[in-house]
């Protein structure tokens, strides 16, 4: 059901709904059996879909086991990770905790800045580099007359973002520390 051909043919939204309808009941049952709540199941499943999507889109990956089983494998692994994090948090709840998320604070700062200052460029770039749309799809989605125009615009945006990162990073002097 969730194979890459389908991801290309369907909208991303349709594929996400399918994931929920076909796999979330299994994921929820597993998490409930392990003592988790509905809110925790939702949180774990959201991240599992992101990982699964990246596996499908960013490589020529095809799961050897069925894709429902593969997504469930990610859910189980993600649940263990989530539980581990919660335990650490509980043990330290009386101690002042610094932000230990995966993104560095200055990466977050830069990302926040780019979201505000160049949303259109970031949208366009992520469509190509993250969603892996073709230039034809890019041209249609962003209203360019040809694939060539979309290509030129993509590189202009990349230059703009690169230069803004440089400028802002110099301002946030400790960026690479």
């Amino acid at each position, binding site marked *: 059901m969730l194979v890459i051909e389908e991801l290309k043919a369907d909208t*991303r*939204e349709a594929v*996400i*709904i399918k994931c*929920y*309808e076909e796999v*979330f*009941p299994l994921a*929820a*049952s597993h998490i*409930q059996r392990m003592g988790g*709540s*509905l809110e925790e199941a*939702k949180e774990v*499943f*959201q*991240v599992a*879909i*992101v990982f699964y*999507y*990246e596996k499908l889109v960013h490589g020529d990956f095809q799961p050897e086991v069925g894709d429902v089983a593969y997504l469930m494998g990610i859910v189980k692994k993600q649940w263990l990770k989530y539980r581990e994090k919660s335990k650490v948090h509980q043990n330290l709840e009386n101690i002042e905790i610094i932000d230990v998320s995966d*993104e560095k604070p200055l*990466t977050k700062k*830069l*990302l926040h800045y*780019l*979201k505000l200052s160049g949303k259109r460029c*970031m*949208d366009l*770039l*992520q469509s190509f*580099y*993250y*969603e892996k749309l073709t230039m034809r799809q890019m041209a249609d989605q962003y209203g360019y007359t040809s694939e060539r125009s979309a290509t*030129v615009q993509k*590189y*202009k945006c*990349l*230059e703009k*973002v*690169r*230069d803004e*990162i*440089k400028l802002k*990073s110099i301002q946030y002097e400790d960026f690479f520390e």
Partner: protein
Amino acid sequence: MKTSLNETIEIENLLLQQGDTSDRLVTEAKVLSNSEFKEKVQWQSLAYDLVNLYGRDKLLKEIKVIENRLFSTSKYQSFQNQIYSIFKK
């Protein structure tokens, strides 16, 4: 296409390991001999990382909106009942 755009493409081919191999070797040599160019390569590499993080953030938001709809609209009532029954156990 302007020279600066050609340079951006050259860096992209190097970082994403695409295009002609011999051209990439020339670019690699340029990285070693030109510090300004080397710096540009580093900033562009960071730009790809941030674009991917932005894409991931966007997908996560999209998933949350869809999930919210699945749990709040009557169209998905049977799905909601199925899930709520799991947590009533």
